[in-house]
C-alpha cells in the first residue's frame, strides 16, 4: 500500500478534484438563478433553503476547489468536499427512488440526469475526497513551494 503515500498521486487527485469543483462552481455563481432552479427541481426544499444553497454552495465549492488545487488547508477542504458529495448522493438517490427525471444540476450547461450513474460518479468523487483527507500530506503544494522559496531566501541572506 506504499502507493497511497505517493506525493505525486496526492497532487494528481487533488488537482483533479479541485479543478472539477472549480469547473462546476463558477457557472453556478454566474447564473445563481439557474442553480436555484436545479435545486428547486428536486422538489424537496422550501424557498429559504433553495435560496441559501444557491447563494452559498457555489462559493463553498470555489473555495474548496482553490484549496485543493493550491494544497493550502487541503485536509479541511477534502472533508467539506466529502460532506457535499454525501449530500449530492443522497439527493440523487431520493430522486431516483421517487422516479423523478430531472437534471442533477452537477454542471451548468451539461444535461445530466440524477440517476444511478450520477450516484456512481459521486461515489468515485467521495472516494477521492476521502483519499485526500486520510492520506494527503500536501507536501507538493503551493504552500510548500512558497515556504521553500522563503527558506531559500533566508539561507541566501544568511550566507551573504
Amino acid at each position, binding site marked *: 500500500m506504499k502507493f497511497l503515500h505517493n506525493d505525486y498521486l496526492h497532487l494528481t487527485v487533488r488537482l483533479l478534484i479541485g479543478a472539477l469543483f472549480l469547473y462546476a462552481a463558477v457557472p453556478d*455563481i454566474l447564473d*445563481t*438563478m*439557474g442553480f*436555484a*432552479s436545479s435545486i*428547486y*427541481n428536486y422538489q424537496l426544499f422550501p*424557498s*429559504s433553503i*433553495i*435560496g*441559501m444553497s*444557491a*447563494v*452559498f*454552495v*457555489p*462559493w*463553498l465549492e*470555489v*473555495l*474548496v476547489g482553490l*484549496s485543493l488545487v493550491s494544497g493550502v*488547508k487541503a*485536509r*479541511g*477542504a477534502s*472533508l*467539506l468536499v466529502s460532506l457535499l458529495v454525501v449530500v449530492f448522493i443522497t439527493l440523487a438517490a431520493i430522486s431516483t427512488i421517487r422516479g423523478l*427525471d*430531472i*437534471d442533477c444540476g452537477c454542471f451548468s450547461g451539461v444535461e445530466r440526469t440524477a440517476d444511478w450513474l450520477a450516484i456512481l460518479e459521486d461515489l468515485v468523487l467521495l472516494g477521492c475526497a476521502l483519499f485526500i483527507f*486520510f492520506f494527503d*500530506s*500536501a*507536501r507538493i503544494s503551493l504552500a510548500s513551494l512558497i515556504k521553500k522559496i522563503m527558506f531559500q531566501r533566508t539561507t541566501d541572506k544568511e550566507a551573504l
Partner: protein
Amino acid sequence: MTQQAKTGLVPESSSRQSRPVFSWRRVTRDCLYFLALAIILGVLWNYSLLLKAFDGTLITEIQQHQLAELKLKAKQLYPGISFIDLLSAKKLYDDKVAIFVDARTSQEYQIEHISGAASLPVRALLQGDIKPDKVLPDREAVLITYCDGGECDISLELAKELSERGYQNIFVLGEGWPGWEAAGYPMDK
C-alpha cells in the same frame, strides 16, 4: 493521553518528518473558515436572491426562469412550436375547444392528470408502440401538450412529433400540470 490520541489518525513518529500532524481541531477550524468565507462572499455577491428566498418570491421567479429557458430551448430546437399561457389554456378548456394531451408515461398519467386530458406518452410514440390517430383522430383539433412543467421538455417533443405527423393546431403548456394544479384548475386523480 498519548500523543497519538491527542492528535488523531497519523502518529508523528510513524510518518515521514515533513508529514503534517493530523488534528481534528485544526480541520474543524479550517472547515469553519471555509463556511464563513463562503457565506460572506455569497451574501456580497447575491444578497438580493437571499431576500427573495425569505420574502417568498423566489419560487415564482424560478418558475418564470424555467419557463423562459424552456421557450428559449423550443426556439432553438423546435422552431414553429407555440406556447400557451395558463389563462388562455383554461379559456379553451372551459369552452371545450382544446384537447389536452399528457406527454408523460401512462403510469404518471394514472396518478394525476389534467381533467379530461388524453394520454399520449412521447416515449411510446417514438418507439411506435402507440398510434396517435387512435388517441387523436382529428388532425384539425386544437391540441395542448403538457408534462411536469419546470425543465420538463417532453411536451415540446410531443408537439414536434404531432406537428410532423400532420396535426396543425398544437400549443405547449409550459407550466405543465403543476402550474395548472397550482392555479386551482380541475385535475383527475
